[in-house]
């Protein structure tokens, strides 16, 4: 989170940059191969705490997943998840975590998408993505283009709002629901 | 042939049935006759909370540091105190603990620096009203008093 710090020399205070992850570049056969194949769409290949990840453009995600599945042996999609950063122009970080049985390694693919963007669905590549993408839609509101059944998974179909966004207030939402449906004051 | 006989005479089913009959022996009775027999509760069991009292002078051990309230994930402890001018320490006035939302995780007990707040082995906490589950200081010091049945 950005912090305000006044420098005594400068005429006006400048905000310090938000601290970022201390990731180190990832060297190896796999990133080199991927960079050759995909070129400029791979924005970063780093490793942090021993866990490797690629940061790619959102259009390159599905081709990269296909390539990794067919040529890289990464046949197991572990998880799809998202993180919401409301202060950035590209508000969501979308993560795909992949694992390869033969290589026994796990990698992450990270991409940044804006609020109104609809990324391609990964169901064509990995069947697991079905419910995982539905849950990301349910919690964050990111729609996936081409998904066979883009509906809410955990919450009722008529629920308004997307809970895991940062601007979703739980207590205010609880009070509102209780007042509407039960007619009493909530005890929060 | 032997397989045919085993099928006709239901040997595999009788084998399973024999296990059941073996367990009918009275030494295998596992039922606890509660409430006549009290169950065995471990020493470290996280049950009802209690505010301990100093055995020497009868005063409470709590120093109103508020660490338990800060550690609680449900924010259900409210500690108020007033400053005592003579000893320059805080004196505890009220201590409210809401057992209806408590999940008995033990974080408050771990946080207390003087071992004043302790989770005891009492597990019989039922009351007839919801408000009866919000405990004030006196209830915390005495502990819940469930009805003892005589047989």
């Amino acid at each position, binding site marked *: 989170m950005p912090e305000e710090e006044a420098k005594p020399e400068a005429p006006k205070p400048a905000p310090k940059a938000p601290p970022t992850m201390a990731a180190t570049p990832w060297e190896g056969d796999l990133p080199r191969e991927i960079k050759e194949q995909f070129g400029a769409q791979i924005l970063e290949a780093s490793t942090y705490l021993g866990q490797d990840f690629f940061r790619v453009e959102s259009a390159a995600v599905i081709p990269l997943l296909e390539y990794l599945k067919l040529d890289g042996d990464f046949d197991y999609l572990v998880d799809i998840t998202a993180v919401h950063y409301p202060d950035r122009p590209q508000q969501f970080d979308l993560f795909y975590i992949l694992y390869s049985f033969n290589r026994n390694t796990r990698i992450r693919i990270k991409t940044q998408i804006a609020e109104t963007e609809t990324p391609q669905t990964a169901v064509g590549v990995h069947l697991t993505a079905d419910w995982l993408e539905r849950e990301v839609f349910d919690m964050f509101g990111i729609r996936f283009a081409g998904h066979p059944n883009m509906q809410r998974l955990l919450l009722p179909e008529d629920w308004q709002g997307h809970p895991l966004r940062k601007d979703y207030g739980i207590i205010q939402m609880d009070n509102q629901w209780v007042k509407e449906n039960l007619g009493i004051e909530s005890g929060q | 042939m032997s397989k045919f006989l085993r099928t006709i005479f239901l040997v595999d089913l009788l084998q*399973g049935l024999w296990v059941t009959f073996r367990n009918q022996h009275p030494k295998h009775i596992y039922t606890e006759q509660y409430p006549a027999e009290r169950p065995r509760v471990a020493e470290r069991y996280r049950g009802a909370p209690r505010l301990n009292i100093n055995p020497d002078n009868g005063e409470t051990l709590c120093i109103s540091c508020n660490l338990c309230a800060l550690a609680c994930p449900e924010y259900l402890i409210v500690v108020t105190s007033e400053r005592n001018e003579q000893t320059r320490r805080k004196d505890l006035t009220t201590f409210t603990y809401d057992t209806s939302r408590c999940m008995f995780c033990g974080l408050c007990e771990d946080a207390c620096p003087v071992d004043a707040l302790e989770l005891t082995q009492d597990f019989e906490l039922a009351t007839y009203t919801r408000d009866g589950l919000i405990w004030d200081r006196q209830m915390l010091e005495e502990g819940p008093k469930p009805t003892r049945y005589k047989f």
Partner: protein
Amino acid sequence: MPETTFLDSTEMVLNMGPQHPSTHGVLRVILKLDGERVRGTECVIGYLHRGVEKIAENRTYQMFAPYVDRMDYIAAVSNGLGYCLAVEKLLNVEAPPRAQVARVILTELNRIASHLFWLGTHALDIGAITPLFYTLREREEILKIFEDYCGARLTTHSFRIGGMLYEIHEGLERQVKAFCDMFISKVDEYEELLTHNRIWVERLKGVGILNADSCKQYGVTGPVLRAAGVKWDLRRAQPYSGYEKYEFDIPTAQNADTYDRYTVRMQEMRQSVRILRQAVEGIPEGPIMAKVSKAIKPPVGEAYVSIEAPKGELGYFIVSDGSTQPYRIRVRPPSLINLQALDRMVRGALIADVVAIIGTIDIVLGEVDR
């Protein structure tokens, strides 16, 4: 009687509603039936959604640990282990050896407890009522050990970030050894009741087949994957908390049907006893908690750590922004991912088999819905 031709049939939609004794919780399965054969299913979940991931954003790291137990409430110790390992990874600390051995002991006991509960309820769904009583009786012994150690039977909150809070209570070694000696004969008893019983075999063989390729495509892990012939266990592939020191086999089977998942889980219980005997032999002396500050503030970053929970691969993905509260915690629940494969497993089966298949995937709705 309206005029219909003899071959005119339509699909019937039947609701196995959220209140059902055999769906292991509040799970709603909408079955599209053709007579008694199932043509397709749709699972409706979310009846137990408590918003654990949203709660995590408003609690500190230590405060969140009790909430984690309540997701997979049958095997609560594994959840705690995964969470503590994930936060320790972000902090770049490692628990001391004594804590690691104690963690292994509790986690393996927890695995046996989870499989015992699974066996009891699965047999109950199929119709065999007796194993339930026996398995729960053995589970009581394990829960007594948990109670002696950390004070709670089910939602244990036994591990802390950096190690464990309580010192191992005296008598743990004696209790675990007594349990191991008693337990193998009990597993033999369950096998005597079920394994060659013709009713059991007929109900389970050939039902709910999910071969290895489908498992990998659907991301299914745990005993379901191992019953399909893939010899993969996270404790062997990417060991954590000292598992590389213990010798144990990974049971697999060939046919990938319900009966094989039953045999795989029974074998896993035996292997867990083997690990327990090795672990309890030499518990090293030393500190039980690493040096971790009271206010845990991991540096900015993200990490994904997963462990082999009794139900599959349980993963925690934690994004930290440098403050005392996590920015995002994502739990990768094995039961949710395994439940997705229900649709594939149930094609062409009878309604009674649907109950058997839901039981064999071993789901816990607390984990599916979080």
